[in-house]
C-alpha cells in the first residue's frame, strides 16, 4: 500500500517504469477537470436617460432577447470523469449561477436584484445498470434535459432540480428516461403559508420516450409529467383550518409531443404541442412541467410552438425563428392567451463580423379576472439591430460581442401611476421609460459566451 502510494505520487517515475515494463496502461487515474459554462454581460442605456430598460410584455413568460437583456448572468461549471473502466464511467458535474443588475463595479450578490445560486451538483453513472446498456443512472441536483427556445430564452419543458433518475435506456426504437425531481417552495399561491422556514414539497415524476425515428431526419419525443404538492400532516391540518380545498389544485400533469427535424434548410426545426393542468400551471408562472406549490389554482393550458434555425443563403445568411401560442384557462379567470412570434436573421460579412436584426412580437389577451397588469388586450413589438463580432458563422456560435440598438413599441401605458406593471413587465430590469410612454429606445453593448471541454 505504502509502496504503491509513493509510486502514484511520482507520475514521471511511474511513466518511466510503465514504459520500461511496456505496460499497456498506467495504473493511476488522472483527473482532467472539465470547465464549462455560459455568460452574458454588457452595458446599455435608455434613450432620454437612465440605464437600459428591457422590454417585456406584462403577462408574457418571455421576451425576445437580442439587445434586450439588462443583467449579467453567468453559469460556471466544473466537472470531471472520476472513473472509467471499459464502457462504465462515473462523471461528476457542478454549476453555480450568478445574476447581477449591472449597477457598478462592486455588486454584492446578496443585494436585491442580484443572486448566486447552486444549480447543479450530481453524479451520473453510465452503463452501471446490468441489462440496460447505454443507460445513465444519476442522482443529485441538475439541469434535466431542458427544452427551450434560444431567441426569447423561453423554457417550455424543464423539471430541473434535486432528483434521481435513469436516462437514455435504449429500447431499440428510441430511448426511455425516468426521473423524480423536486421544486420546493413556500408560496401556496394564496399567500396563506404560515412559516417560510417550512416548505411545501413539490414532487415531479417525469417520463420521456425520445429519439423515436418517424421520418428521414425527423424524430419524435413524447413525455408526461405528473407534479403534486406533497403536504405533510400538519400542513394539511393547517390548510383544512384555513378552509383551503387543495384536493385538485395541488396536483397536475403535463403532456408533451415534440417533433424535431434535422437537415431543415441547413438547420433544424422543432414543433411541440403541450397540455397541462391544475398544479403544474399557475396564473403568473410559466408552466414547465413541474409542480408549482399552488394549492387551489385550477385550470388547464394548451401550448403549441415551432422554432428553429435555417440557412437562407449558405454561409451568408441564417435565421432563428419562433412561433408560440399558449392558452392558459384558469377556473377563476386569471389566465390569459399569449401569442408570440419572432425572427432573427443574421448576415455574415466575414468569419468574424455579422449584422443581426431581431423582430419580436408578443400579444397578451388576459382573462376577465386578471389584476396586477394591463387587463385588456395589449401587445409589444421590438426591433433590434446589432453589429456582432463572433468566433465564426452561425446563430449558435459564440463568443460574440455585439453593439445594439433596440426600439420597442407597445399598446397602453407602460406602467401604472405607481410604476407598477401595466403593459410592460417591471421585473425585466430597470424601468426607465415614462409611465405613459408607448415606445422606447435603448442602445448598448453585450457579450455572450458559452464553452465546455
Amino acid at each position, binding site marked *: 500500500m505504502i509502496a504503491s502510494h509513493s509510486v502514484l505520487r511520482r507520475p514521471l517515475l511511474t511513466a518511466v517504469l510503465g514504459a520500461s515494463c511496456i505496460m499497456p496502461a498506467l495504473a493511476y487515474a488522472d483527473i482532467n477537470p472539465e470547465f464549462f459554462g455560459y455568460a452574458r454581460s454588457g452595458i446599455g442605456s435608455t434613450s432620454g436617460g437612465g440605464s437600459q430598460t428591457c422590454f417585456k410584455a406584462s403577462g408574457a413568460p418571455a421576451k425576445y432577447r437580442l439587445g434586450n437583456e439588462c443583467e449579467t448572468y453567468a453559469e460556471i461549471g466544473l466537472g470531471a470523469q472520476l472513473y472509467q473502466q471499459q464502457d462504465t464511467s462515473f462523471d461528476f458535474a457542478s454549476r453555480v449561477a450568478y445574476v447581477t443588475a449591472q449597477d457598478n463595479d462592486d455588486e454584492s450578490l446578496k443585494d436585491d436584484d442580484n443572486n448566486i445560486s447552486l444549480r447543479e451538483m450530481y453524479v451520473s453513472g453510465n452503463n452501471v445498470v446490468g441489462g440496460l446498456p447505454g443507460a445513465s443512472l444519476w442522482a443529485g441536483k441538475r439541469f434535466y434535459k431542458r427544452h427551450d427556445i434560444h431567441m426569447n430564452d423561453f423554457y417550455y419543458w424543464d423539471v430541473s432540480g434535486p432528483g434521481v433518475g435513469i436516462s437514455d435506456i435504449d429500447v431499440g426504437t428510441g430511448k426511455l428516461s425516468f426521473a423524480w425531481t423536486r421544486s420546493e417552495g413556500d408560496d401556496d399561491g394564496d399567500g396563506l403559508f404560515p412559516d417560510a422556514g417550512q416548505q411545501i414539497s413539490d414532487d415531479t415524476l417525469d417520463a420521456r420516450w425520445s429519439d423515436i425515428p418517424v421520418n428521414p431526419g425527423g424524430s419524435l419525443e413524447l413525455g408526461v409529467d405528473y407534479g403534486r404538492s406533497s403536504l405533510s400532516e400538519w400542513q394539511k391540518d393547517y390548510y383544512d383550518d384555513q378552509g383551503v380545498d387543495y384536493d385538485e389544485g395541488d396536483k397536475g400533469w403535463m403532456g408533451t409531443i415534440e417533433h424535431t427535424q434535422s437537415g431543415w434548410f441547413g438547420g433544424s426545426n422543432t414543433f411541440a404541442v403541450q397540455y397541462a393542468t391544475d398544479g403544474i400551471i399557475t396564473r403568473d408562472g410559466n408552466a414547465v412541467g413541474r409542480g408549482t406549490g399552488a394549492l387551489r389554482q385550477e385550470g388547464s393550458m394548451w401550448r403549441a410552438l415551432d422554432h428553429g434555425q435555417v440557412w437562407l443563403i449558405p454561409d451568408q445568411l441564417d435565421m432563428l425563428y419562433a412561433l408560440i401560442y399558449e392558452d392558459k384557462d384558469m377556473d377563476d379567470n386569471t389566465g390569459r392567451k399569449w401569442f408570440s412570434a419572432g425572427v432573427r436573421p443574421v448576415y455574415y460579412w*466575414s468569419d468574424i463580423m455579422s449584422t443581426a436584426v431581431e423582430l419580436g412580437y408578443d400579444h397578451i389577451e388576459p382573462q376577465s379576472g386578471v389584476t396586477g397588469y394591463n387587463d385588456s388586450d395589449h401587445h409589444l413589438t421590438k426591433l433590434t439591430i446589432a453589429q456582432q463580432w463572433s468566433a465564426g458563422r452561425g446563430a449558435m456560435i*459564440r463568443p460574440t460581442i455585439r453593439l445594439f440598438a433596440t426600439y420597442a413599441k407597445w399598446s397602453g401605458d407602460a406602467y401604472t401611476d405607481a410604476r407598477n406593471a401595466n403593459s410592460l413587465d417591471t421585473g425585466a430590469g430597470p424601468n426607465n421609460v415614462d409611465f405613459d410612454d408607448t415606445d422606447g429606445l435603448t442602445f448598448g453593448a453585450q457579450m455572450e459566451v458559452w464553452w465546455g471541454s
Partner: protein
Amino acid sequence: MLSSYRLAVPLSTLLFALAGCSTPLMAPHSPTIPAQQGQQALASAPDCCTSLASLPYRPISAQETLTLDFTPQAPVHDFGDGKSFFQAFTLPRNNGPVAISITSPIRDGQLFAPTLLVLDAAFQPVRQVPSDSLRVRRPTGFSSARLEGQFSLTPGPDAQYLVIYSSEQDRRATTSYESEAKAYARVRGLAEPPGPDPRAVHAATGTITLEIASLAGNAGLTPLAAAAPPPAQRPTPSESQGVAPTPASAATSHSADFDYRRMIDAALKAGDIELALELADRAERSGHPGTRAWLAERLQARTP
C-alpha cells in the same frame, strides 16, 4: 411624443457607426470547395514530380504557425497510396527537437484528413503519421470541431523533410463530430438534439494549421499534450512506391556528434517525458549504453 427627437441622436449615431463597421475590412473568406469538385480537380491534375527528392520543398523555421491551403493550385503527387495535393517542407536543422501540431477544422461538413510523412536527408520515409491517429476534438465554444494531433521529432539527417498530404485511405474514412447545437445543449444542460452526430467527409482539398515549436532552449514553452499519436510507423514498401524502408541502424551513422543527453534535458525541461524516453531509446540503439539508466536517475532526482 417627447421621446421621438430624443431617440434620433443616439439612434443615428449608432446606425452611422454600424454602417461604418459593415464594410468588410477583413480578408474575404475563401469558400469551401465542395468535396466532389475537389476530387475531380485532383483526378485531372498531373503529378508534379518523379520522386520524393524532386518535391517542391520550402523551408520553415523552428517557431512558426502556418495556414496550409490544399487547393487545386497546390502541387500533386502520388505517394504510393493515391494521388494527393500536398505541401512539403525542409525542417530546421541544428535547432534541437521540435513539437509539431496539426489542426484540421471541420468546415461545412468536410475536412482535409492529413497524413504526415517524415523523410530523412536521403528522401527516404522514416515516419508516417496517418490521419486516423489524430484525435477528434469537440467544439469548445472557442473553436469548432476539428482533428488534432501533436508529435515531436528532432530534425537532422534522420528527419530532414516533412510532407503533408492525404492518402486514398485517409479520404475513404469519415469523421463523426459533435455539432455546435449539441455542444451548446451539453454545456447548458439542455435536451440534446436527437439523431446521430453528423459525419464530416474527408475531402481532397481543405485548410489545416501547422504549428512548429522549438523544444530546445525554450523550457516549458510548449508542453506537449498527452494526445501525441503513436510513435513512428514505418511505411512498408507496398505503401511507399519505390522506397525501401530505412533500417533502424541507419540512425547510427549520423549520430556521432549528436548530444543525446543535452536533448533529453531539453525534453525534460519542456515536460515531454515521451520525447525524453524516445531519445534515450535512440541513444541506446546508437551506441550510448546507459542513457536510459541516466534518464531514470534524472527523473528520480527531479521528482519530489
